[in-house]
């Protein structure tokens, strides 16, 4: 390398550093630093500040454990429901062959632009004892349903709020599958169900995985939905963490529980991704 090239390389490096500095600073200030703080609080005791695992062990307390299990149950159910609703919908959207993808995205983003709280409170009004559903039911002489303040109401809210996060990634991968690939499968003798099971479903797996992640994580950690639709009767893990910070003013316990939840989510996602990688290329059928 001659001198000129050396100087150029140096300049390039400097420019790279300069251009990337805002992002580096952002990452440090808003991602790494908060994470370090959560880890610090989570692993230190409230009174002395010494190292302790007590905050993490809190999750094993019977009440907290039950809360975690209920949270996982509800978010798993919501995620599966989202998948079951979103996949056929995304398939139908794909077969419409819309010219502009923007329109479809808009269709599903539009409700999301509405305030999250507003949407959830709207559901509260619909499900209430004297809400829209029960008014309609009693108008036709049917007994009232008791949905509000039950796990059903929470699941309903989660599905409604997080459905777009499932539809969009799945629709994206589906719309990238070429018509000729599907025709090739038909040409080789596959009927519609076989094409779906052996070609479309495996090819859309990346979208499914990302949809699962994007619905499961917010479902597991939300406390607003359970607050509004669960009426405080049903305690989810997100709510417990909120209470630790706000009511008990115990940052250490809150951070400890958050850490446990984070690790739990991380493991779940690792399992999903590993399954995805494993099945790739090997015989699924």
């Amino acid at each position, binding site marked *: 390398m001659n001198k000129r090239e050396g100087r150029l390389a140096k300049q390039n490096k400097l420019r790279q550093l300069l251009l990337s500095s805002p992002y580096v600073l952002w990452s440090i200030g808003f991602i790494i630093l908060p994470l370090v703080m959560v880890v610090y609080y989570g692993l230190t005791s409230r009174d002395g500040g010494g190292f302790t695992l007590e905050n993490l062990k809190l999750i094993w307390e019977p009440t907290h454990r039950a809360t975690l299990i209920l949270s996982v149950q509800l978010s798993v159910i919501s995620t599966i429901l989202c998948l079951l609703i979103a996949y056929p919908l995304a398939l139908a959207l794909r077969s419409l062959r819309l010219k502009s993808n923007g329109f479809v995205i808009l269709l599903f983003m539009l409700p999301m632009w509405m305030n999250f709280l507003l949407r959830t409170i709207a559901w509260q009004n619909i499900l209430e004892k004297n809400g829209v559903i029960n008014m309609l039911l009693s108008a036709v002489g049917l007994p009232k349903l008791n949905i509000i303040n039950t796990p059903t109401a929470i699941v309903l809210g989660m599905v409604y709020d997080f459905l777009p996060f499932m539809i969009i990634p799945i629709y994206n991968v589906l719309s990238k599958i*070429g018509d*000729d*690939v599907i*025709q*090739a*499968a*038909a*040409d*080789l*003798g*596959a*009927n519609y169900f*076989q094409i779906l099971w*052996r*070609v479309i479903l*495996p*090819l859309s*797996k990346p979208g499914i995985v990302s949809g699962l992640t994007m619905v499961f994580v917010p479902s597991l950690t939300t406390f607003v939905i359970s607050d509004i639709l669960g009426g405080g009767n049903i305690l989810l893990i997100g709510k417990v963490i909120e209470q630790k910070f706000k009511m008990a003013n115990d940052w250490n316990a809150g951070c400890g529980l958050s850490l446990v939840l984070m690790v739990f989510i991380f493991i779940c996602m690792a399992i999903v991704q590993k399954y995805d990688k494993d099945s*790739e*290329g090997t*015989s699924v*059928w």
Partner: protein
Amino acid sequence: MAQENKLITLENITKKYGGQVVLDDLNLYIRENEFLTLLGPSGCGKTTTLRIIGGFETPDTGRVIFDGQDITNLPPNKRQLNTVFQKYALFTHMTIAENIAFGLKIKKKSKQYIQDKIDYALKLVNLDGFGKRMPDSLSGGQQQRIAIARAIVNEPKVLLLDEPLGALDLKLRQDMQYELIRLKNELGITFVYVTHDQEEALTMSDTIMVMNQGYIQQIGSPEMIYNEPKNAFVADFIGESNIIGATMIQDRLVEILGAKFACVDEGFGTNQPVDVVIRPEDVDLVEPEQGTIQGVVTSLIFKGVHYEMEVEANGFTWLVHSTDLSPVGKQVGIKVDPFDIQIMNKPESEDEEAVGINE
């Protein structure tokens, strides 16, 4: 050679897309063990014809007969034919072996049978040992050969190929042409091949069907299509040619650009306006006094096998291919052997010119 056994018949096929006629009353039969090429410019209806045979499109009117049975409304997965797609359309989530096995697994063949077929097919397309690899790790030519292997393991009676070499570079394309001819001979099945590349069509086909704007222009052997084009479109599309307006004076005598040429065609009447086609390699450049007409060389390009020259003579620029060099500015005579002059009727109206019905 192709047997006289009609395997596929298309009867009065018409297809419109949003008011635009893509195929207009098309009739065609394909013989068993024939290599038929549908040739034409883009938008001529060749791919639509193939897709109707494959079952991916339904004709608006008309019938598709396969082996004596009406299959017009049969879905693709119920048809005894397989397609090789232009962009390969391999299943990217499966290995090469799984791709090839796809059709056989659907048909619930035994494991052993499938394994034997995979081995056989990979050998046939010269990709022995590629079974465990993923499609993405193969080159375009290799992927296309896998697509062919995936189709032929199902032992179709007919293989449909939709511009299968379109995405490959020239050298690979030429190699694959010979590969396809070899495959066709080894398998002994019918090939229906779609292309816009006339050289490809001439090299591989038993029969070429030239199409334009939804109409069949000419069907015939490659030699026939090349040497005796039925109209100016076919002449122009297949190879290079000099197409000149002329007058048929009487049987076996035609007047081209004011000079009388002997030819071999009869039955065009007397003093009839016609078009003549003369291939560039059939134009002989001789000393001026020996030529039927005289001209001057205006351009010269070396093309490898031959020189390409343009000769200005009697107000027409003649395209000439020859291995003998005539430098720019040289006075030359033009001579054409009688059997190298192809006479065609002039189209009678603009409409007919467009669709090429000029019989």
